[in-house]
C-alpha cells in the first residue's frame, strides 16, 4: 500500500517539488494543520508578516526581483480578504503569485461559519484562476497546476482554497508530472512572415521608436540583453513604461526616458511624431496613451505581446506578434542579420534627421527643476540617492504617488528586476512590504523603498517583520506632509481646494523607527543630505529615513487629462510654460 500523506503534508510536498524556499504568511484557525506541518520541512522558510496584505506585497517583491513565483499562506475569512489588494495588484502588473488560503471545513461551507467567506468568489476577478479543493485526491494536482498557471503565459496570481478537513485527510501523493498544454501557455507560435514584416517595416522607417514594457522583464534577464542588442543593432531610440524601467540602461544615449503622463518631453513627443512604433511587452495603458483618438496619429504600430487579449484592446495595431518577448527578439535579430547585413549603416542616415529632432526635444531638459539651498527638493533627494547608490547593485521599491514618479524619472536603472513598483493598481503601501520580500530574496543586496509619508503609513507595521528577520531595508521617505499627487491634482484641477490631502498629526518617524527597534535618521537641509544618506547606507539594520522635502513641489512634466502626447505641461523652470501655467486655467 502506498504511503499516505495528510493534506497539509501534500501542500509542503508540492512546495518542495516546486523549489519554493520562502513563503510569506500569517497563521489562523483554518490553516493551523498546515502551520503544524511547517516544522517538518526545513527547505521551506516561513516569513511571518504583520498583516496579510503585507504578505501579498512581500511575495510580489520577492517574485519581481527573482522571476520566481511568490507564495503566500493565509487563513480563511479576514486572512483571505486582507490579501485581495495584493492579488489585484499582482493581477494588474502580471506578477506570479500562488496564494494558499485556509477555508472552514467542507461541511460548514455555506453556513456562515466563523471566519468563513466565499474566498474563491471574492478572488475570482483578481486571479488568473482559483480553486476550492473539496476532495483530498485533487489537492496535489491542483497545487501543481496553480504554479503552472501562475508562471506561464502572461504571469499572474492564483489562489488555492483548502478547507481545514481536507488538510487533515490522507491520501497517497501524486508526483508532479508534465501536463498537457494549458490556456495561455501555447501563445508562442508566431510565424516567420510576421518577423519578416517587422524587419521590412524597420528597414523602411525614418522615425522609428521602441516602446517597451514590463513584458520584457517578465520574459527573463535574457530578454533584456536581447533588447539591448536589438536597440544597438537598429540604432533606434527607445522609451520604456514605468514597469519596463531597467530593461534598457537608463543612462544610455539611445534611451529617451520613461513615457506617459509623467514621462519625458522627448519620449512623449517622439511617440507622437514617430512613423513606426514597436511596442514590446507593453499594454497601451491609459497613463501611457493619453487621449486615444490622438495617440501617435502618423505611425504604423507593431505590438509584441504574449497575451493575445492585450492586442487591439486599447489601440488598434497594424502588426501583431503574439509571443514571448525573448523568442520574438531572437527571431528578429536572426532575420535582421541574415537579410540586412548593413542595416546600421543605411539606417543611421535614414534616422539622422529623427535623432536631430529628438535632440531638440531633449534640450528642453524636461526633468529639470528649480533647485534650492534652504529646502530639500524631492527630485534632488532622489538624484543624490542615485549618485550615492549607483555603484552598488541596488534594488528600489516604491509606494504610490509623486515620490514614485520622481523615482522613475530621476533614478536610473541598468538591470532588470531592480525596480519594483505598483503601476497598474497604484497601491499605496506596496513599497515597504515589497522591500521585505526583495531583501528576503537578496539578503546581501541594498534594498531601498522610496516612499511618501502617507503611503508608508498604510503598511508601516511590516517594519516589525523587517526587524524580526534582521532585514536591513531602507525606507527613504520623501516627507511633504501631503498626499502629494492628490494635492497636485487639486492644485491643477480643483482650484486649490486641498480637500483632506494634508496629514495633520503625522508620527515622528525617527521615534517610530526606534520604537520598532530599527534606526531613524532625519534630513532637513540640502547640505546635510549626503552625509545622512551615507549614514543610512552604512547602517546594517533597517532604517527609516525621514527626508523633509519642499511641501509645494509638483511632479512635471505632465500630460494633463484628455490631452495627447504633444501637449505636455513642463515644469516651472521652462519660462515660456510658466507664463501659461501662471494664467492657471489653461489646463484641459
Amino acid at each position, binding site marked *: 500500500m502506498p504511503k499516505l500523506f495528510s493534506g497539509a503534508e501534500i501542500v509542503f510536498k508540492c512546495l518542495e517539488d516546486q523549489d519554493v524556499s520562502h513563503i510569506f504568511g500569517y497563521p489562523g484557525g483554518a490553516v493551523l494543520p498546515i502551520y503544524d506541518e511547517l516544522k517538518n520541512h526545513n527547505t521551506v522558510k516561513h516569513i511571518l508578516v504583520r498583516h496579510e496584505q503585507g504578505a501579498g506585497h512581500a511575495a510580489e517583491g520577492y517574485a519581481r526581483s527573482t522571476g520566481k513565483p511568490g507564495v503566500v499562506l493565509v487563513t480563511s475569512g479576514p486572512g483571505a480578504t486582507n490579501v485581495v489588494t495584493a492579488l489585484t495588484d499582482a493581477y494588474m502588473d502580471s506578477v506570479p503569485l500562488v496564494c494558499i488560503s485556509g477555508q472552514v471545513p467542507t461541511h460548514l461551507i455555506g453556513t456562515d461559519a466563523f471566519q468563513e467567506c466565499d474566498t474563491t*468568489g471574492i478572488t475570482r476577478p483578481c486571479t488568473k484562476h482559483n480553486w476550492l479543493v473539496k476532495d483530498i485526491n485533487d489537492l496535489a494536482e491542483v497545487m501543481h497546476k496553480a504554479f503552472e*498557471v501562475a508562471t506561464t503565459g502572461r504571469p499572474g496570481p492564483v489562489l488555492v482554497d483548502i478547507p481545514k478537513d481536507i488538510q487533515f485527510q490522507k491520501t497517497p501523493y501524486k508526483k508532479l508530472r508534465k501536463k498537457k498544454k494549458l490556456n495561455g501557455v501555447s501563445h508562442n507560435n508566431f510565424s516567420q512572415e510576421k518577423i519578416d514584416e517587422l524587419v521590412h517595416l524597420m528597414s523602411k522607417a525614418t522615425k522609428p521608436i521602441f516602446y517597451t514594457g514590463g513584458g520584457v522583464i517578465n520574459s527573463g534577464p535574457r530578454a533584456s540583453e536581447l533588447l539591448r542588442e536589438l536597440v544597438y543593432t537598429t540604432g533606434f531610440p527607445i522609451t520604456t513604461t514605468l514597469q519596463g524601467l531597467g530593461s534598457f540602461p537608463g543612462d544610455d544615449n539611445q534611451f529617451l526616458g520613461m513615457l506617459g503622463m509623467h514621462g519625458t518631453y522627448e519620449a512623449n513627443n517622439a511617440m507622437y511624431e514617430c512613423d513606426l512604433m514597436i511596442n514590446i511587452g507593453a499594454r497601451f495603458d491609459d497613463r501611457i*496613451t493619453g*487621449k486615444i483618438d490622438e495617440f501617435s496619429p502618423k505611425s504604423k504600430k507593431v505590438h509584441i505581446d504574449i497575451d493575445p*487579449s492585450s492586442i*487591439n484592446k486599447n489601440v488598434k495595431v497594424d502588426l501583431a506578434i503574439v509571443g514571448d518577448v525573448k523568442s520574438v527578439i531572437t527571431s528578429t535579430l536572426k532575420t535582421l542579420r541574415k537579410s540586412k547585413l548593413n542595416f546600421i549603416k543605411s539606417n543611421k542616415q535614414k534616422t539622422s534627421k529623427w535623432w536631430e529632432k529628438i535632440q531638440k526635444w531633449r534640450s528642453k531638459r524636461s526633468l529639470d527643476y528649480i533647485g534650492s539651498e534652504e529646502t530639500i527638493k524631492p527630485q534632488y533627494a532622489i538624484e543624490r540617492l542615485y549618485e550615492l547608490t549607483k555603484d552598488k547593485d541596488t534594488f528600489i521599491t516604491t509606494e504610490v504617488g509623486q515620490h514614485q514618479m520622481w523615482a522613475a524619472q530621476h533614478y536610473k536603472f541598468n538591470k532588470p528586476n531592480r525596480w519594483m513598483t505598483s503601476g497598474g493598481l497604484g497601491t499605496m503601501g506596496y513599497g515597504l512590504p515589497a522591500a521585505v520580500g526583495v531583501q528576503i530574496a537578496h539578503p546581501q543586496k541594498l534594498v531601498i523603498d522610496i516612499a511618501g509619508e502617507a503611503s508608508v503609513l498604510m503598511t508601516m507595521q511590516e517594519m516589525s517583520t523587517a526587524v524580526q528577520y534582521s532585514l536591513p531595508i531602507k525606507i527613504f521617505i520623501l516627507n511633504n506632509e501631503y498626499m502629494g499627487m492628490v494635492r497636485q491634482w487639486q492644485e491643477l*484641477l480643483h482650484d486649490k481646494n486641498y480637500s483632506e490631502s494634508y496629514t495633520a498629526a503625522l508620527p515622528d518617524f525617527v521615534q517610530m523607527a526606534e520604537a520598532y527597534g530599527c534606526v531613524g535618521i532625519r534630513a532637513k537641509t540640502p547640505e546635510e543630505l549626503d552625509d545622512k544618506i551615507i549614514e543610512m547606507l552604512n547602517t546594517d539594520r533597517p532604517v527609516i529615513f525621514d527626508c523633509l522635502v519642499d511641501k509645494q513641489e509638483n511632479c512635471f512634466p505632465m500630460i494633463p*487629462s484628455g490631452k495627447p502626447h504633444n501637449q505636455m505641461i513642463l515644469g516651472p523652470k521652462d519660462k515660456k510654460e510658466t507664463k501659461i501655467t501662471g494664467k492657471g486655467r489653461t489646463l*484641459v
Partner: protein
Amino acid sequence: MPKSKSAYSVAGKKEKLDTHIIVVWVDNEAGVLARVVGLFSGRGYNIESLAVAEIDQKLNISRITIVTTGTPQVVDQIKLQLKKLVPVHKVADFKREDKNVIFKEMALFKLVGTNGKIEKAINACKKYNAVILDSTNRSKVVQVTALRREIDKMSNDLKKYGLVSISRTGAVAMTRGEKVFK
C-alpha cells in the same frame, strides 16, 4: 469646452454596436458559469441572453451560448478574454445576420380564456412549431421555437388572446451543413 476635472481621459466617440452570438465550450465544474458571467459584468460587456447545459457527460463539457452586443473591438476582446479562462476549451462567434447558422429560442406560453380566444392564439403561433403541452377547458400551455424577435412579437400579440405567463430560454446556435466548429 468645459473644463475636465478628471484624471482620466474623456470617452471617445460612440461606435456602432453589432449583435453577436458567442458559443463557449467549458469544463462543467463548480463556478465555471460564474467565471464566464463575471468576466462579462466585470468588464462591462452586455449579456442579452444566456443558455447553458452539459452536452457531453463523459468528457464533462458544457456549452454556453451568449447573445451579446458590442463594437467589433469589444467583441474581439470578449473572445480573447474568454479564451484566457482556464476551463474554457474553445470559443465560437457568429454574427446574428449569419445565414450559415441556425439560431433558436424556445418559449412556453400559458393562455387562459374562452375557447375562441385560445383558438385564435394557437392559430397565430402555428408557423412557429407550436406544440400544445397542456390543455384544460379554460387554458392551454403552448411551446414555440423561433427567433428572438418573433417570440418578442408573439408575446406582444398574444396578450389580447389571454396570454397570462411566459417562460423563455436564451438562444442556442448550430451551424448549417456538415461543418463542425473546431
